C-alpha cells in the first residue's frame, strides 16, 4: 500500500520533472534556432510544476525529509520522543487535511465558472483537485504514522535544502 503509493507518486513526479526539462529545451531551442516556439509551453510548465510539487509531497513525508529542529532529541527519553512524534504527525495531519479542504473548495469555485488556461484552453480545476487530493493523501500518511510509528524513517533527518 505504502510502496504502491510511493511508486505512483514517484512516477508522476519524475515524469512531470522530465517533461518540464524537455519542454524547456525544445521551447528555447526552437525559439533561438528555428524561431518557432512550442505553443503554450509556459502554461504546460505551470501545470507540470503543480504535478511535480504535489506528487513530491507524500514522498517527502514518507522519507521524513521535512526540515526539523532535532537538536533536543538526544536529551529526550525514547518514550517521550515517541509521544512527541505522534503529536507532531497529528498536527501535520490536521494542517495538510485543512489545506486539502481549502484547495477542494477553491477547485469547486474555479469549476463553477469554468476556469481555463489562456492559450491552450486547458481546464484548470482538475489540477487544483489534484493538489487537494495529494495534500489529503499526505495528511492520511501522517495519520498512518501516528497509528504505526515504526514506519517512521530513522530519526536524524537528512535534508538538502541548500
Amino acid at each position, binding site marked *: 500500500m505504502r510502496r504502491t503509493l510511493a511508486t505512483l507518486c*514517484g512516477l508522476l*513526479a*519524475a515524469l*512531470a*520533472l*522530465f517533461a*518540464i*526539462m*524537455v*519542454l*524547456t*529545451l525544445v*521551447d*528555447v531551442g526552437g525559439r*533561438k534556432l528555428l524561431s518557432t516556439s512550442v505553443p503554450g509551453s*509556459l502554461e504546460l*510548465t*505551470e*501545470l*507540470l*510544476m*503543480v504535478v*511535480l*510539487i*504535489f*506528487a*513530491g*509531497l507524500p*514522498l*517527502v513525508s514518507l522519507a521524513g*525529509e*521535512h*526540515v*526539523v*529542529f*532535532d*537538536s*533536543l*532529541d538526544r536529551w529526550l527519553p525514547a518514550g517521550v520522543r515517541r509521544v*512527541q*512524534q505522534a*503529536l*507532531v504527525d497529528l*498536527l*501535520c495531519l490536521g*494542517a495538510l487535511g485543512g*489545506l486539502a479542504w*481549502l*484547495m477542494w*473548495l*477553491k477547485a469547486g469555485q474555479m469549476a463553477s465558472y469554468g476556469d481555463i488556461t489562456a492559450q491552450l484552453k486547458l481546464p484548470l480545476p482538475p*489540477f*487544483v483537485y489534484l*493538489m487537494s487530493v495529494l495534500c489529503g493523501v499526505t495528511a492520511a500518511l501522517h495519520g498512518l504514522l501516528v497509528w504505526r510509528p515504526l514506519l517512521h524513517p530513522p530519526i*536524524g533527518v*537528512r*535534508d*538538502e*535544502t*541548500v
Partner: protein
Amino acid sequence: MTEALLAFGAVFALALLRIPLAFAMGLVGFVGLGLLRGWAPTMANAAQVVYDTGFAYTLSVVPLFILMGNFVARAGLAHELFNAAYAFIGHLRGGLAHATILACAGFGSICGSSIATAATMSKVAFPPMKRLGYADYLSTGVIAAGGTLGIMIPPSTILVIYGIVTETNIGHLFAAGVLPGLLCAGLLMAGVAWITWRDPQAGPAGERTAWRGRWRAVRGIWGVALLVVVVLGGIYGGVFTATEGAGIGASGAFFFALARRALNWRVLYEVLVESARTTAMLFTILIAAMLFSGFVNFTTMPGDLKDWILSQGFSPLMVVGAMMLIYVVLGTIMEELSMVLLTIPVFFPIVTGLGFDPVWFGVLIVLVVQIGLISPPVGMNLFVLNALLKGVRLGDIFRGVWLFVLMLVVALVAVLEFQPLALWLPGFMR
C-alpha cells in the same frame, strides 16, 4: 509590533517541539492573519498563495537547477575535477586539500547545493586523502567548508530562492556570486596553508604529475566547462532567462550523463525522484514562508522597525552588520534557509530603505548561510559528513572546521565593507 513578535516566538516554540519548520511557519502565519483579518479572507488568501506558488512558471528554475546538479553528480564528473586539480597542485604541502577546494569550486559551478557538493566530494576526495595519511580533522574540515562554495558560486539554490521571494533579478544575483565565491575559495586555501604550516604531518605532499598527465587531466573536464559556459554565459549574456538556462543546463547534464553511460532507467528514475523530493520539500518551506510573510507584512512590525532604525541615525553599514551578526549566531543552531525566509519580511525593507542594493544583500545572505552550514554544533554539512564517513568522529570534524568558519567570516566582512566585490560584475549586465 507585539503580534509579530509573538508570532516569531510561536514559530520558534513550535520548532523546538520538533514540528517541521514549514508547518510551524505556515500555521503561525495562517492563525495570525486569521486573528487580525478574520477567517474567511484568510482562508481564501491561503488557498490563493498555495495556488500561485504551484502554478508559477518562473519557479521551475528551482527543480531544473537541482536536476542539473544531480545528473552531474551521477555522471561522476567530480572525479575528473578532483584529478585535474590534483595534477597541478597535488605535489604541494596540503596539495590534496587545496585540490579539494578547487574541485568543490568547479563542482559548485554546476551544482547549486552546498550539501550535495560536500556529499559528492566526501566520496571523491576523502579516500585519497586518507591513503596519503591526511589528518581526519583537515580532510573533513576542508570538504565541509569547500562544499559551501556550491551555494556561492552560481548556480545557487539560495540565490534563486532569495531572488524569488524578494523579486530580485536572478541573473544579477548569479553574476554577483562569482567574485565572492572565488574570494571564499582563496581564503579557504589560505586556511589549508596555515594548517599545514603549523602541522605539516596533517597534510603531506602527493606525487608530482608530469605536464603530459596534466593536460590529459584537463581534457577530462571539458564537458563541465562547456556546460558552465553555455548555461551561465547564456544567462549573463542575456541570451536566455535563468529559468531557460536551468532547463538547458539540466538537459545538457542529462545528455552528458547519458553519453558517459552513467544512466539506465533505474538511475534516471532515482535522479528524477530525488530531485522531485528536494523540490517538494523546498516548496513546502517556500509556501509556508509566503504565508508567514503575508501575516508579518500585515502587522506594523516591518514599518515600525524600519522607521525606528531610520530615525535613530545608526550608520547604515552598522545596521546590516548587526543583521549579519544575528544571522551568524542564529545560524549555529537553526536551519539556515528557514532562518533566512523567516527574517526576510522584516530585514529586507530595512536594507532597501537604507538604500542598499538587494543584490549585495543577497550575497551577504549566502555568506551567512555558508557560515551557518559549517558552524558547530548544528551545521548541516558537518552532519552529512558524519553520516557518510563512518570512521571519523564528530569531534574531529568539529575541531577541523573552526579555522574555515573564521575564513568565511573574513569573506563576510570583506563583502560587507567592500560592496564592489559583489556589485562590480552585475554592473555589466543590462
